[in-house]
């Protein structure tokens, strides 16, 4: 099912990007509806991470456009994109990448603290999300005292705590065993469904992508799922944007 373009929370138009000469994206177009869970599927090196980075405004594509809620992202200054990430987006990477100096609950509450939420309120929200993810017992410990799955759950809580509009999950379960994988994915998807959070989930694992509403397949920086549909989508959007 392809959502009508006007409903798209996030839209990419023929993205091209290369890392110092080696091409990563070669003309990818896609749209993600509000509250939709889109899986980006493809082997390593197929451009999933670059696509997510472009969509989340961490990287500006060499060519092409990214639109979020009807306003362009690719033309924003670095400061405005930073603010967009802080206030509207969440990110879960393959590594938890927590701040080693902060305790677990402080790590989870960091997005709220960065937005200027009062300490007490941020702590309460963090403890609630940690409870959902079954790590509230470790809330006052440092990341080094946790196991890797517990750290990844903390990173998941950090991505969800501010109830962002879009959560980008780049191989969030790559380093986890099956049981932990199920918990992280279940929490992420349940939160997405109940708060109408849009999720862009990159994974090479068919089991993970099967949980999504829709799947887009990338290979060597190109969409391989439905080339006709992609082309038609691109044309329709070009005519709309004129």
């Amino acid at each position: 099912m392809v959502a009508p373009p006007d409903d798209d929370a996030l839209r990419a138009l023929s993205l091209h990007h290369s890392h110092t000469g080696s091409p990563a994206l070669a003309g990818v177009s896609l749209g993600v509806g509000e509250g939709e869970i889109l899986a980006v599927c493809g082997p390593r090196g197929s451009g999933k991470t670059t696509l997510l980075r472009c969509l989340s405004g961490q990287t500006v594509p060499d060519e092409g456009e990214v639109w979020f809620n009807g306003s362009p992202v690719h033309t924003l200054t670095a400061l405005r994109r930073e603010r967009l990430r802080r206030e509207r987006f969440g990110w879960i990477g393959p590594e938890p990448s927590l701040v080693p100096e902060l305790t677990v609950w402080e790590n989870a509450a960091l997005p709220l603290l960065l937005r200027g939420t009062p300490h007490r309120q941020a702590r309460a929200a963090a403890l609630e999300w940690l409870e959902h993810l079954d790590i509230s017992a470790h809330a006052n410990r440092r990341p080094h005292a946790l196991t890797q799955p517990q750290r990844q759950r903390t990173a998941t809580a950090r991505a969800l705590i501010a109830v962002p509009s879009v959560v980008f999950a780049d191989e969030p379960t790559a380093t986890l065993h099956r049981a932990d994988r199920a918990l992280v994915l279940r929490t992420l998807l349940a939160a997405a469904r109940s708060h109408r959070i849009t999720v862009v989930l990159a994974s090479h694992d068919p089991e993970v992508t099967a949980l999504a509403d829709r799947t887009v397949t990338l290979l060597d920086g190109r969409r391989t799922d439905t080339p006709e549909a992609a082309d038609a989508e691109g044309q329709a959007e070009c005519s709309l944007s004129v």
Partner: protein
Amino acid sequence: MLALRLTRGSHPLVLLRRLLVAAASAGVGFLLLSSLTHALAHPGDSAASLQRLLWCALPLAATVHLAVVVARTDPATRPRTGLSAVGLGPGRLAVLAAVSTAVAGTLGSALALLFFLHLRGDLTGLPFDGAAAEPLASGRPLPTGAALILLALVPFSTTLAAALALRPRGAPAPAEAEAPEATAPPRPPGGLPWGCALTTAGLAVGTYAAHADRGVSLPLPGQFDGHPAGSLLGWALTAVGLALAGPALTHFCGRLLQARRPGAARLLAGRILMEESRRIGRPLGVVCAVASAVITVWTLHDTGPHPFGPLTGLGATLVIACTAATLITSAVEARQSRSAATENLRRLGASAGALRLAALLRVLALLLVLTPVTWAVATLAAVPLAR
């Protein structure tokens, strides 16, 4: 050869740090050679020459400290996955660091010798030939063995210290690929009791010595006469005490910063300071000690006419510049080691402004706590001497 190849490809800032070591080494070499010429010029007054030689220990210590920190910060000596896989592990890298340090130190010593011979008038053809011929005892032949031993002192001690500081310890080296959050943080630094005890002991010794008989004295070179050996010992004790207390004081600053329901900036600033207290604290304590010594000398300088000689000025400049450079290099090292965490914060959308604010808060907290300490130590050290 690998050391040279790595040096050739390194960043200009890294080269600048090595050049600083070379410059400091040159300065200390020149001071040592000057004390040798003093001995040559005044064969009867060996006590004064020995005293000059002993005063060179301070710049030498500062230079060794700088060389060790520079060697530790050098990106070429950091364990790297690729190099470790081809057998260039922590052990070989320590050797590599020692070799780079030896090269920098030897370069400095060679420069010192050239400059010294030039000022003495032994090398001709450049401006200022023999400009300082008389104070550098140009009439007498230079004993080669003594000069070489003095010149080898700096490269030898810096190399030894760098090799010792970087030698692989019994504990396994942290895996290169391991994420920063997976490594256990260092324990909070102790050393405050020892630091306080030594600082107070140093001040007490200084006070006691100032009242003691001024006949047994170890005066500063130049015209800074009349200070007993005891006050020098007192200063040394105070400096060691401050250096020991530095990490704990830094940790305390961090603890203060993140107390009482902090926001993001205060939380990050405080925790980072607590985490980095071991790395930053030691050089910071040394800087405090040097600063308090400078303040003390300044106060005494105001009360009486004591113009410094050029060599005393060179020594003081070396000590101040080396300790400042050591502190800055340690700060750079801390920043490098946090680069991954900073990258994560930026990905979360932490603005550059927020990160700068956190850094500013750290500096302010350190200034707020350490300035009074430095001032108090300086004032207490100056009281007995001013009378």
